[in-house]
């Protein structure tokens, strides 16, 4: 039994996602159930790999008992264009922090409310959606190119294009920080 607990703490665990802040990626209005997703703790605790565009679960900075599921928009050094109600129009993410946002900007308690969050608050990374079954495996392969969708299915194409548009809009609001690679020296 301790082995199973350690497994979910350090490797993978299933979590139920509730709330509207990640629509339409997670918990869309078309779904009757709250999404259940597989979260990966190993890449955060052991490998410490944080990537822009990853959906992550993190402890809320304003309420220590709450866990939020949001997307990493910017990492340290990036200049991010913020959304209301954040007071400044642009913000540089400080060292060791990240800018996180929910996909639904009007119903999201995210960095636009409380600013950059320390990377140490991030708990796990979403790997794939497990339930409901018609969206199983969603978000596993990214990014979804409209070319890959069969041309016969109109609504799938439109949904894929909409997702691509949202991703482009998110990326357009971030100026990424280019670090000098250490191998260039000496």
């Amino acid at each position: 039994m301790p082995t199973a607990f350690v497994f979910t703490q350090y490797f993978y665990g299933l979590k139920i996602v509730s709330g509207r802040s990640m629509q339409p990626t997670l918990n869309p209005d078309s779904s009757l159930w709250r999404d259940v997703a597989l979260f990966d703790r190993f890449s955060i605790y052991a490998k410490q790999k944080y990537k822009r565009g990853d959906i992550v679960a993190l402890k809320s900075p304003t309420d220590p008992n709450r866990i939020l599921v949001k997307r990493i928009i910017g990492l340290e050094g990036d200049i991010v264009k913020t959304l209301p109600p954040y007071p400044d129009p642009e913000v540089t993410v400080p060292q060791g922090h990240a800018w996180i946002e929910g996909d639904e900007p009007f119903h999201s308690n995210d960095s636009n409310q409380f600013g950059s969050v320390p990377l140490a608050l991030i708990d796990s990374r979403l790997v794939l959606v497990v339930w409901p079954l018609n969206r199983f495996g969603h978000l596993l392969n990214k990014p979804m190119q409209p070319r890959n969708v069969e041309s016969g299915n109109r609504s799938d194409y439109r949904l894929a294009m909409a997702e691509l548009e949202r991703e482009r809009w998110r990326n357009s609001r971030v100026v990424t920080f280019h670090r000098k690679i250490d191998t260039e020296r000496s």
Partner: protein
Amino acid sequence: MSRWIANALNALKDPNAVKFGLKRTGIRGFKLINMFCAIHLFTEYVGRPSTMAGPSMLPTLATYGEIVIEDRITYRLNPSSLSRGDLVTLKSPVNPSHIICKRVIGLPGDIVCVDPTGNKAPSSEHVVIPKGHIWISGDNAANSRDSRDYGPVPISLIQARLYARVWPLKDSTIFRNPTRIVE
């Protein structure tokens, strides 16, 4: 020795014995892994000894060579027991892989003077600590990177409370909260 080898070779001839031997090894291995996991869970959630390093908590903690006991369970069971003056270990807000040890100065809602000496901020600058955050400070203010540099930190970063120092033996003490409220 040769008798042991002969016995082992005889045992190998019987297929059931090999299966039984493997099953026993498998179960023992699983029990060993289980024990490691249980010990690990204890050290993560209840308490554990750990070494301290760095000059930012002088004179409370020395620069190197000390071992203290961290108490991880008090803040989990009773989060409201966090009080001003507690020695806590927390994950660093500027580097997620570092663990730092500082003292809690302010709780959410408090108004804190950032730096009375005026070194890192004008001595009249005050900050209201937002909800869910605390203000931390090293005891050796001259040589400590703390909330005067990076502002209030979220309470969720706290890992443990320091309970006592156990090494060196002549300096072993239980850490008590030294706060005095001055009216």
